[in-house]
Each structure stands twice: as C-alpha cells, then as structure tokens.
C-alpha cells in the first residue's frame, strides 16, 4: 500500500469515526435530561385554560424532553418585576425584552442576557434561516448577539381610514390621497360631510392621541415628543428638529384651517382617543396610527363594523425602534440555555407549537373555517393571539377570520421593501440629558396637542412654542443626539 493510500484510508477512518460520534451524539439527544423552561412574558393575564393548553404544549415539547412555564406580568409592572428577578439572580430561561419594556441595550449591558453567538448555529438552525440579517444587526452589541428579534411586522407606514359609505355617497376618489400622501386632498370630502350630514357626525376624528401629522420619512430618535429626527435617506445622519420642519408647519396650519371650519370636535385637544365615537359610527374619517396588511380588519372593527377605505399615506420604512420593539433574550442565569434555544427554534419551525401557545387547542379555543382561516371560540378560557408578537415568529400564526389569506406574505413583502433607517443598530441613551428631556417633553406634551388639533391660533402660539422649546433645552438634546450618533458611526 502506498503511503498516499494509507493516508487517505486513515483520513476516511477518522471521518467515519467522527460521523459515528456525531450520530451517537444525535442519538443521545433523544435522551435529554428532562428540563423545565421558565419564560417571563408581559401582557396576557393568567388564562383560565392555561393548564390544559400548557399540557398540550408539553406534549409537543416531548422531542426535546422539556416542559414550559410562562409567567406573565402586566405591561405597567413588567420592567420592575424583571429588574427584581434579575438583580435577585433568580434562575430563569427566557424573557421578553424590547425598546419600550425592559430596555434591551441597558439590560443587556448590565450582563443579564447571554451572548448567543456560540449557540445559534447548533441549536437554532430554523431561526438563522428565517430571520432577515437586519434583525441580527439590531440585536447586536459590540458583535455579541444578546437577543432574538421576534419576527413580525418590522416595517411601518402611516394609514388613514375613511368610511366607505360616506366616501361613495359624495363620489370621493380615495386614490388621490393614496397617490399624493397629501392630507389636504380630503378637504372636499370633509366640506361635503359638514354641509350635508347630520351635525353629530364628526368629519375628521382628530384628537390629542390621533393626529394627521405623520412621520415624514424620518426616524424619531427619542420618540414623538422629543426634538431630533434623522431623515431616512440621509446617510450622513444629520439630526434636525422636526418641530421646525416644514411638514410640521404644514400639518399645523391645515389642522387650524379645519378646526375653524368645524371639521374637528371643539374639545379635540383634551380627547385621548375617539374609539367610543368611532364605534358608534359618528366619525367619518380618522388617522390610523400604523398601516399594515390586514389592518383594515382592525380598522373596520374600530369603526363599529362599517366598511372602510384603509389608505396608506406614506412609504413603508423600517427603524431601529421597530426592529427591537419585540425580542426574546436568554437569561444569563439559565441552567440550560441550549434547551431554551432548542425550544425557541421549535416555535419558529413548528406552526402547531406556535399556534397552541397563542390560540390554544383546536376545536376548544379555536376552530378552522371552510376557507382555511381560523377563528377563536369566545370565552373558551384561552386566547393570547393579541400578544402573538411576543412568541418568536408571528408569520407562523394561522390566518384569522377576516384577515386576507396572504396577510403574512404581504407583511413579509412590506418588510422587504421598506426603506431601512440609517440608524439601525444604534439606540439613543437619554441618561446624560435626562433633565432637558423632562423639560422639553413637558413643553411638547402641552403644545403638540393644541397645535396639531388646530385648537389654538398658530400665529401667536407657534412662536411661543418654539421659544419655550429653546428655553427648555431642545438644542442641547439635538446636539447630544448628534454626538452619540457620530461616536457610534466612528466606532463602526
């Protein structure tokens, strides 16, 4: 035997041994030690049917020999509860984290979460395959991945809702608004409603909580109440003050004009929402907050079941805030992070598991309709589908009655076409200028609702607003935001 052949043979032998070892390891996998996974979530109150649903979930988890326990805390107290659990060093496996509840970057920096880089390839093949790479960018801190972004609608667009019966009655063509994104184009419709409908019909449901000023292709750095935005198409990431932006002035003047013409309710500035009026059928048109595929079903319910036009009034865009708005992290105190991740991968790979967690049991909590959609059975004792965005991959959810059959395909399409903000992977640290933020938020909180509902005269109040913003330290906030962005860009 020549030396070369011997070498080849020994390599082959070594390989076989390796493969055998791998296969053996695989076989061992089925004999995993039993493990109890504890998962902290926020939102759904304890469901009376939770015990039987969890029993079913545990059946599904038999292949990885795990059992699941989900502990839920309401939105108001989740942060505090988790901070206690984390600082007490209690062992748990998974928890919900985001930009708005249990702040991701701060909590990860405190060392509460496990870096997942070494685990993902082995234990989360499905997640790696499914999740767009932009998600990992947002979940990384200095190269370490500290959470798994939940797959759901990541893109955002503004929406506007018009009651179909009213629009049709006056021959209003909604495509004008859909093409121009210009709110002023609905003025003729509002005028017609004002002139012809009974006085209790509100032409436009403008109120403090729901304006027509929409995000004009910019990312709001510290939320809508804080000055400082970066335009989506601006790769230099220059921070500007949106309250001096022409879009703000335009919206403000439009709202004033409509207010004077009586299209807006007189007490709009103090109304947080108009859900009750919408349900009662008193509101003809209203802003929608966020436009999304299947959102027309929600909007229709909100309008008391009346048919509506649901119009997208901005291009879809994607900001860092939206990417990290729902994530799941593995705790650094987890006794068995491998198993926790195997379980989380199953949520992505198994529709049955995902839907059992969110909808409950078939024919008890939900049932399939003839067209393939699912509908929940009222008062069955289990339904957390409202919170589906907390459980991994929302695109695994069965299409619900009333939703378009391709709702998830449409959502994925929207995610893929959305313009991504240049700030993805960066988040604002408000700590250094907390005092200015409090002062400025108080000013914007007071004036925004007045100016954007048209309740006051911009001629006199707008200069007053700008002066107070300056006095409260708006410029300092913008400078700090710019400084942090520059530092982040330099470090990249």
């Amino acid at each position, binding site marked *: 035997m020549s030396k070369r052949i011997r070498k080849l043979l020994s390599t082959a032998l070594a390989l076989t041994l390796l493969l055998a070892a791998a296969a053996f390891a695989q076989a061992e996998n089925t004999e995993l030690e039993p493990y109890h996974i504890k998962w902290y979530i926020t*939102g*759904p*109150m*304890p*469901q*009376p049917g*939770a015990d039987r649903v969890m029993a079913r979930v545990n059946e599904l988890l038999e292949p990885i020999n795990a059992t699941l326990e989900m*502990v839920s*805390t*309401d*939105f*108001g*107290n989740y942060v*505090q*509860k988790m901070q*206690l659990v984390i*600082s*007490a060093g*209690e062992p748990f496996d998974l928890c919900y984290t985001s930009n*708005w509840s249990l702040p991701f970057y701060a909590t990860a920096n405190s060392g509460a979460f496990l870096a997942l880089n070494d685990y993902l390839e082995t234990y989360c093949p499905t997640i790696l395959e499914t999740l767009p790479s932009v998600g990992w960018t947002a979940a990384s801190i200095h190269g370490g991945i500290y959470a798994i972004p939940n797959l*759901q*609608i990541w893109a*955002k667009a503004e929406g506007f809702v018009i009651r179909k019966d009213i629009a049709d009655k006056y021959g209003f063509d909604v495509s004008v608004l859909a093409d121009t994104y210009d709110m002023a184009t609905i003025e003729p419709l509002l005028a017609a409603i004002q002139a012809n409908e009974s006085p*209790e019909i509100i032409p436009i449901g403008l109120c403090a*909580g*729901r304006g027509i000023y929409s995000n004009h292709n910019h990312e709001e750095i510290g939320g809508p109440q804080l000055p400082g935005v970066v335009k989506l198409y601006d790769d230099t990431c220059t921070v500007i003050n949106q309250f001096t932006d022409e879009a703000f002035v335009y919206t403000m003047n439009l709202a004033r004009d409509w207010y004077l013409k009586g299209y807006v309710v007189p007490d709009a500035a103090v109304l947080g*929402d108009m*859900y*009750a*009026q919408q*349900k*009662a059928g*008193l509101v003809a048109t209203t802003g929608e*907050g*966020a436009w*999304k595929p*299947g*959102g027309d079903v*929600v909007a229709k*319910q*909100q309008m008391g079941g009346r048919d509506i036009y649901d119009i997208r009034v901005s291009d879809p865009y994607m900001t860092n*805030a*939206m990417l990290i*708005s*729902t994530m799941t992290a593995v705790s650094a105190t987890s006794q068995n992070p491998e198993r926790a991740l195997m379980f989380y991968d199953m949520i992505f790979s198994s529709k049955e598991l995902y839907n059992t967690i969110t909808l409950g049991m078939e024919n008890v909590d939900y049932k399939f309709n003839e067209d393939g959609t699912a509908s929940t059975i*009222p*008062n069955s*004792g289990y339904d957390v*589908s*409202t919170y*589906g*965005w907390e459980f991994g991959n*929302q695109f695994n959810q069965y299409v*619900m009655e009333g*939703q378009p059959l391709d709702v998830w395909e449409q*959502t994925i399409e929207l995610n893929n076409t959305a313009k991504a903000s240049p700030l993805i992977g960066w988040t604002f640290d408000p700590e250094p200028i907390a005092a200015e933020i409090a002062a400025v938020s108080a000013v914007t909180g007071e004036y925004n609702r007045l100016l954007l509902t048209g309740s006051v005269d911009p001629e006199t109040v707008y200069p007053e607003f700008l002066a107070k913003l300056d006095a409260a330290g708006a410029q300092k906030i913008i400078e700090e935001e710019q400084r942090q962005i520059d530092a982040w860009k330099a470090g990249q």
Partner: protein
Amino acid sequence: MKAGSVIVKRGANKAARVRDKRFSIGLWAGYTVLALICACCVVPLLYIVAISFTEERALAINGYRLIPSTFSALAYEFVASNPSQLINSYTVTISVTIIGTFISLLVTAMLAYAMSRKYFLLGKKINFAVFFTMIFNVGLVPWYILNVRYYHLNNTIFSLILPYLIVPWNVFLFKGFLSEFPDALIEAARIDGSSEAATFFRIVLPNCKPALATVGLFIAFMYWNDWWLGMLYIEKSSLIPLQLMLYRIMNNIEFLSTSLNTGYISVTTTLFPNESARMAMCVLATGPMLIVFPFFQKYFVKGLTVGAVKG
C-alpha cells in the same frame, strides 16, 4: 345596654340644642358646605355606577348621565365572562383581607401596648426601632431577595399577608390612643393579680374598640386594595388577588390602545372592554368595601381623633 342608653340620652340633648338654633344662619351655611362636600364625594360614585349600566353607544352620543339613557348590563357580562378567575380572585382577596386584618390588628395592638407601657424597659428602644423603619427602608431589591430567596414566600398566600403585618404608622396611631388609657385601670388589674396577657386581652382590648375599629379599617383597606404584593410574588393564577386581576385588565387595555397608535407591534384584535366595562370593574373592586364601611362608622368618628389630642 347601659352604654346604649347613655348614647341615646346624649343624642337627645344634642337634638334639643340643635332645635334651639334652627334659624341660625351659621348653622345652615355649615350644612350647605358639608352637603356640597358630601355631593363631591357621592356624585362621582353614582356616575360610576350609572355609566357601568349604560350602553356604549349611548355614552358616545349623550356623554355621561346620572340616569342611563339606555340601560344595559353588557359591561358586567364582559367582566364576568371569565367567572372562575373572578370568583377565585374574590376568594383570595376576601381571605387575605380577613386573615390579614385579624393578625395584623392583633400584632399592631400588642406592639403598641408594649411600647406605651412606661415601666417596660425596652419600650423606648422598640419605639425607636419602629420609628426608624418609618423613615428609612431597606429598598426594594434586598426586600424582594429576602422574601423570595430566604423566606420562600413567593407563590404562597403568606406573601400577600406577612409583608404588611406591621405598618409603623398604624402602630403609632394605636399607641396614641393607648396613651390616653388610664393607668389606674391597669394598675388595679395588676393588684388584683392579673397577668400582663390577661390585662391586655381582658382589660385593655375591650376598652379600645374605637382604636381597633379605626386601625382595623385602615388595615382592611390596605389588604383589600393591594395588588403590588401579588404582582411581585404571585405567579400562580389560583392565587391572584382581585385588584391585581382588574388592574391587569385595565393596564393591558391602556397599553394595547396606545400601541395601536404607535404601531410598533401588530395587534390583531380589538376586543377592548369599553368605558362602561371599566366602570363595572371599578364597582366590583370598591363595592364590597362600601358595604362594610357603615358597620365601622359609629367607631370611626371617635377613632379619627385618636392621637390628635396630645403628643
């Protein structure tokens, strides 16, 4: 019986005096002011009850009215759509309130009594210890760690009772009342050979009913209204107290409706309880206490002045 007749007699005297001043302007002015204050307290409550029985559409069109324009009990159907949890939570809260009030009142009274005895050597030290916790506390995290890791209170009904057992303010309130207690009575008991325990239970306690009623009511309210301990320590749904359950419903509605506005997450249903359902929850949460309150009232007036006399 004797005490009762004294009260009647006093009442009669008072009535006679009031009759003399029937046309006094000052008196009527006083009544008017009191009536206004009373109305400020009662009218909102009536509104809550009225709104909880009004149909949602009528609310949107007519606004809030004291007499529902369209009567509807739908709100209560919504809240009670999940009766097992509701009944469960009521049971938890009622038992916590009863057991908690009883034990807490007993411990508070005993502690206050010990502190108020001048011949008790450690009296001043204990006094200081209680007072100290009134100003400084250990902070949330160590407290939580102590209860969870060392006492293992989480997910037990004791976690809803024990942390509130002694509230310094209540102890001082009780002590204030006891400081007016005649020493002679206690000394007489001692001379007659009564033990400290017997003196406390047979002489002192029966004579401070107003203090017991007042402090007891404070404690009962505290236990009844608490959701904080439940939020921290309870993860089992069978032990969730009523207030926490209602608080969660409200809190989640508020969050979901605002998140619809910001659009960060996709919310798929809009099955929010409406205005009237929220009011129905309010009625369910406060109702039982409203019924209990009048039984304590006769002690309450006297009890309120407890400790207000002298330092």
